[in-house]
Structure formats: C-alpha cells, structure tokens
C-alpha cells in the first residue's frame, strides 16, 4: 500500500488495534472491537469515526451560492448562514457525479465531498465555475461523533454544541484553532461531524475516547449504520447512471429549483431530472427485506416471477433490526412497499419484500 494516504489519526488507530483497509486511496480503519458491537454501541451510546479521508473544500466568489446552483439541483441561495444542506452534483444526462454537504459559512461555502470523488469534484467545479476560488483543505481532519451520547460527550469540550439543531453548522474557537462543527452524520443517529486542524485531531479524538460513552468505530460499522438509515453510498447506490429521481432523492431538490419555482432548472441534466420529477422515473431505489436470513448483497438480481425487475446495490445484515436488509433499484411498477419479489442468491431465488426506507427511523435532533 505504498501509495495509500494516512489520516492524522493513523497512529491512534494502530495503537487501538484497528484492522486497516484500503479505501478510496486511503488506509482506513475497517473495525476495532468488531463491526457488530461497534454498530450497536453507536445506537446505544456514541462512536467516534475517523472520516478524514473525505474532501473538505472551501468555495469563495462574489456570488458563490448562485454559482454553485449551476452545478446542483439543491437550493444554495437562501440557505441561511450557519446551516448545512445535502446536495448532488449532476451531469448533463441527469446522472449523479457525487453527493455532498454544503454549509453556508457567511462569506464562503464549506463543502464535504466523498473521498473517492474529490479529484473529480474539484476538476468539475474548476472547469465549470472558473470565477470560483476552490480551496481543497488538506490540513484538516474530519471526525464524526455519532449516537445518542454524542451531545453530552462533545458538550464537555464545546458546551455550545448542545444548542445546535440537525444540520446546523457552527464554528467553535479552540486554543489550537477552530473546530467546524455540524450536527449531522451518516448513521441515522443524532451526532456531529467535526472538522479539526490536523495537528489537533489526535488530541481531540483522545479526549472524546477517554469518555465513558465513546468508543472508536470503523468503516464496517459506518456502512451497516448508513444502510439501516437508508442512506446512499456513492459508487454503489448512486452514480452517473442513476438520476436523483430514480434514487428517490427528489427531497434534495428544493421547490425553487423545480418547474414553476423562482430558479427552476439551470443545473446539469435539469430537463431529464425535472421531467422524471413530474412524470415519474422508469425505476426507483427501494428498500428490500429478505424474508429469510440470507443477506442479499450488491449485485443480487431481483425478479418478479420470471421477469428480471432490478438489482440490489447494497446489502448486509442489519445489527439493530436483527435481520438482513438491502437496497436496490426496481422497475417503478414494482416499487410499491409490500411488493413481493425474489432475489437470486447462489443460484436460488429467495423471497424478499419491497420496503420503505429507512429500515430504522432516524433520531436526528430537529
């Protein structure tokens, strides 16, 4: 793994006995105590995830919100200062280049993008929005603290975070530099994502891990947690071949950007995307619960009788729901919750039922 990058918490991971795995060019912790126990601990108390591999980007321009709206169907104009929003970069065909978080930080926007898409996203913004100053921050770590105990834990260090609501984004001054805190995450739990100067990251992580409720967790638990929460992983559940409407992410297209809105369209792929929004897509991302115990993993073909109607894009065992779970795409006329399908696992067609997402309701502090 000569070319893999290491996060500022690498030494700490090794000290904690993490099993490491290459991910999007980074050497990341896959697990510490074990995926199942880390998953359950997150839902019961709080877990610390190193997500420093994700891209942190600052955008500046005289009219930065209007500029970014040329690349995303999300409303960025009107996003209040100190608030964050989920957004998609779309392409001319209506496909999804990446999904990301955008925070209004007053005189600039702060973006967090997927590790696997950093280079693509940076090139995309620089090419299409030349008036933008695009700064990729490589001197900051990103730590996610997730779970019902997250507020109490982080408030011991930064009391002001207790007053934040879901998707608030705040700057917390510290002795070693600012923490950029948002009340958000990728687990379906209440919690925070904390951007911290690289030199301060290990100290912050150690302070949090020293607290009774906080344990470290790796990418394995992060994946099963996000799947239970019905959240997409780019490159797996969404990519350039899926549109936001097919992916059931229409909620990320605010009214102002839809037909009849003040700023309708004006983003790549708008015609197809807004058309599908009105008339419905040909296929839809759905949840799927196998009736039996065998997980239906990514790539599992889905059938209605003898007709192939779709494919699983993510599948795993859900520790909190105590059964296997999948998400995938099915023909729109098979996407109603309760539809009985089969999935082909090792040559056998096993029953599964289309289900609403998420598998487990989110516990965000709204």
């Amino acid at each position: 793994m000569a070319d893999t990058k290491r996060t500022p918490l690498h030494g700490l991971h090794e000290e904690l006995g993490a099993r490491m795995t290459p991910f999007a060019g980074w050497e990341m912790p896959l697990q510490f105590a074990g995926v199942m126990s880390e998953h359950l601990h997150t839902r019961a108390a709080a877990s610390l995830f190193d997500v420093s591999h994700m891209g942190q980007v600052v955008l500046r321009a005289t009219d930065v919100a209007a500029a970014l709206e040329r690349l995303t169907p999300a409303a960025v104009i009107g996003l209040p200062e100190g608030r964050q929003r989920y957004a998609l970069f779309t392409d001319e065909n209506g496909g999804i280049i990446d999904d990301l978080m955008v925070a209004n930080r007053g005189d600039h926007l702060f973006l967090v993008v997927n590790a696997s898409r950093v280079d693509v996203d940076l090139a995309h913004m620089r090419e299409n929005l030349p008036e933008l100053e695009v700064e990729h921050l490589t001197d900051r770590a990103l730590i996610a603290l997730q779970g019902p105990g997250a507020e109490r834990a982080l408030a011991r260090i930064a009391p002001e975070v207790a007053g934040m609501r879901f998707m608030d984004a705040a700057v917390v001054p510290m002795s070693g530099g600012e923490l950029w805190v948002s009340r958000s995450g990728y687990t379906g739990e209440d919690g925070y994502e904390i951007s911290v100067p690289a030199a301060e990251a290990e100290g912050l992580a150690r302070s949090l891990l020293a607290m009774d409720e906080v344990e470290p967790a790796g990418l394995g638990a992060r994946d099963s947690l996000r799947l239970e929460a019905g959240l997409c992983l780019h490159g797996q559940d969404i990519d350039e071949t899926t549109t936001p409407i097919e992916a059931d992410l229409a909620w990320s297209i605010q009214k102002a950007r839809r037909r009849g809105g003040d700023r309708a369209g004006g983003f790549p792929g708008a015609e197809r995307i807004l058309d599908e929004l009105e008339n419905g897509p040909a296929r839809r991302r759905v949840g799927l619960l196998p009736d039996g115990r065998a997980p239906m993993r990514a790539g599992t073909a889905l059938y209605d009788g003898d007709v192939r109607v779709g494919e699983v894009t993510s599948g795993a065992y859900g520790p909190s729901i105590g059964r296997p779970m999948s998400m995938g795409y099915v023909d729109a006329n098979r996407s109603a919750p309760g539809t009985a399908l089969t999935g082909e696992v090792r040559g056998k067609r096993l029953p599964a039922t289309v289900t609403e997402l998420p598998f487990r309701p989110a516990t965000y502090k709204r």
Partner: protein
Amino acid sequence: MKYTQEHEWLDLDGDIVTVGITEHASTQLGDIVFIELPEVGDIVKKGDEIVVIESVKAASDITAPLDGEIVEVNQSIVETPGKVNEDPESAWFFKIKVEDPTELDEHMDEDAYQEFIE
C-alpha cells in the same frame, strides 16, 4: 485434531469426522450472521462447497475436507450464528462419515497449522 488450509478443524472418532472452523477463521470472518449447512444424507466429494458463511463483511464458503456422507448437522449455529464467533472450537458445523479415515493424514496437525497461519 487435524486442520485444513481452508481453516477447518477435523475431529476423527471411528469413521465419523466432526468439522468446524478455527478461531483464526472466525476472527478473520468477523461477526457471522448467516450459515447454510448441507443436508443430512448428502454424499459429498472433497473440495465441494457445502457450507455458506456470511459475516457482517462478506460471504464465504467452506468445502468438504474429505469424501463421505453427511450424517449430522448442527442446526443450533443456523439459529444462532454468533455461537461460532463465541466458541469456534465447540460450535461444530457438520459430521461426515468417511470411507477412508487415513485420508485425514494428509491434513495438518496443530503445529503445522499454527505455522501455516503465521
């Protein structure tokens, strides 16, 4: 006790071999969430994929370590797959009646297996 390169342990009693997976294998797999066993009465050939194990990470299989007939399977690990992680030495998978118990000799003894996994 004998061990295979697929990280199974084999315990011979007369012409019946009890088969499970090693501590090393269970640690590598991580939390096991699903196990599919062969049927009693199945005639299997060495190398046949006869067990499916799904962990929180991935699916894998284990193969028949010897030619023979499946004479018993451990349904309790199908009901509670986590038992295999808790105590892989006692959570056996299946028992196989072998025609030629000397076939076991080609598998590793404990020292050789320890060396194999190091």
